């Protein structure tokens, strides 16, 4: 009865040239064979890659698959040998299971509700308008990543958290460094410790002089400074990089799909659906990792306790069994349920904020610059390597008529 399970022999490190929006072809091929494949991690540890929508979704919802950092000892492409990994530092709840995860997530949940985030829309409009003014003043051409895609989410999350204005560049630089997937371990560690030290000071300052922001509010509970620092780090990194990449890649994708862009321009009512479709189509959070806590039967195979698992969200979001014509960007697509914000207890806390930012900023950009276009051929736009867990473009040269 048991069919041989497909094996993925190597984890792709790049996307196919000319296809910056599509998951690497090797992973899409694997999904065509079966929704789960065997895969040997770089240090020789046997594990799995899940590529199909239903299976990815069920693993994300299943607490027998752990997010704990100390289990993440195996890397798909880098052989670290037989290393020990310490548990996640206090407050860094992305890499924790219950009940630790809940201790940190719970006090944050009320701050990111649909209603609260909608109330922020006006502020996001103002921030966006300021960036567009600056672009207009400087004139074309420009790099959309530095002029638009990064500053908007950066300003928004810094305001929410209460990071003083003058410190924002410091942050953006360092966070870029450690999320870009392209620097030596040394540079990475330095960027990381720099942010850590800054946040420790910030938490102490908020405790001494609370202001009107999330971080100050949190000092009211029973969380220690160490824990607050970790939580702030998660919020800052999550709030900066993912949305920035959605804005830049989203613009790129719309420019490459002129009929879709025209449809969005003609019917502003399309914007909510457009944002969901771009989230699905681009899946900037392309890969997540889990470790099995016990033996689990899944999709006809037995995953052993301790087995490492790569969840390929980008191929799950292109699964034809769930999304007809999955590789087409179709802003009118109705069937929801994309996994771009993950699923299960870790589903993105900031998703309603991201939605507001995308819904405001993308149409505003095309309104202000109706002739916006790439300033270089599309295949010269450099994308991040697959080693970056968040997909994106390094820069997006654009121009427009004045």
């Amino acid at each position, binding site marked *: 009865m048991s069919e041989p399970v497909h094996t993925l022999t190597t984890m792709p490190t790049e996307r196919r040239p000319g296809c910056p929006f599509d998951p690497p072809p090797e992973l899409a091929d694997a999904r065509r064979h079966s929704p789960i494949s065997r895969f040997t991690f770089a240090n020789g540890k046997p594990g799995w890659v899940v590529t199909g929508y239903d299976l990815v979704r069920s693993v994300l919802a299943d607490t027998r698959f752990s997010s704990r950092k100390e289990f993440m000892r195996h890397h798909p492409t880098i052989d670290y040998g037989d290393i020990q990994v310490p548990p996640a530092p206090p407050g860094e709840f992305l890499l924790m299971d219950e009940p630790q995860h809940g201790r940190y997530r719970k006090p944050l*949940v009320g701050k990111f509700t649909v209603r609260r985030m909608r109330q922020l829309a006006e502020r996001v409009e103002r921030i966006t308008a300021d960036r567009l003014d600056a672009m207009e003043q400087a004139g074309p051409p420009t790099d959309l990543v530095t002029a638009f895609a990064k500053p908007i989410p950066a300003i928004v999350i810094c305001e929410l958290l209460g990071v003083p204005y003058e410190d924002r560049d410091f942050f953006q630089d360092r966070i870029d460094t450690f999320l870009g997937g392209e620097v030596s371990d040394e540079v990475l560690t330095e960027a990381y410790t720099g942010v850590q030290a800054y946040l420790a000071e910030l938490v102490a300052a908020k405790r001494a002089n609370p202001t009107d922001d999330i971080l100050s509010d949190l000092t009211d509970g029973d969380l220690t400074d160490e824990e607050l620092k970790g939580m702030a780090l998660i919020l800052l990194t999550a709030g900066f990089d993912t949305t920035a990449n959605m804005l830049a890649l989203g613009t790129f994708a719309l420019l490459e799909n002129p009929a879709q862009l025209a449809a969005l321009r003609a019917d502003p009512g399309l914007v909510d659906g457009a944002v969901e479709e771009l989230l699905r189509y681009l899946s900037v959070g392309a890969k997540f990792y889990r470790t099995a806590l016990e033996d689990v039967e899944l999709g006809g195979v037995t995953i052993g306790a301790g087995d490492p698992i790569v969840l390929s969200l980008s191929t799950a979001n292109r699964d034809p069994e769930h999304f007809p014509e999955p590789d087409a960007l179709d802003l009118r697509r109705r069937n929801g349920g994309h996994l771009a914000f993950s699923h299960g207890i870790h589903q993105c806390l900031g*998703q309603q904020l991201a939605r507001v930012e995308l819904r405001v900023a993308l149409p505003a950009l095309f309104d202000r610059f109706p002739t916006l276009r790439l300033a270089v051929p599309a295949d010269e736009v450099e994308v991040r390597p697959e080693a970056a867990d968040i997909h994106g473009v390094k820069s997006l040269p654009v121009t427009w008529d004045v």
Partner: protein
Amino acid sequence: MRIGVDRSRCIGAGMCALTAPEVFDQDTGDGRVLTLDAAPEGAAAEAARRAVGLCPSGALSEVPPTRENRDRT
């Protein structure tokens, strides 16, 4: 239809309030789900069913009709 809610499982991601705003809201304090209409009908019921399917934490369910609640749904 009737909606079952297990608030202890809710992680406050807000998929429900986004998908079926007539049926669900989120508590302004703890962010967790609040039911505005436990027995929605028509378009609201459809949206609520979608929300049940989308809820990431399994906090929402559709309660099958029983003799006691059948006349109320």
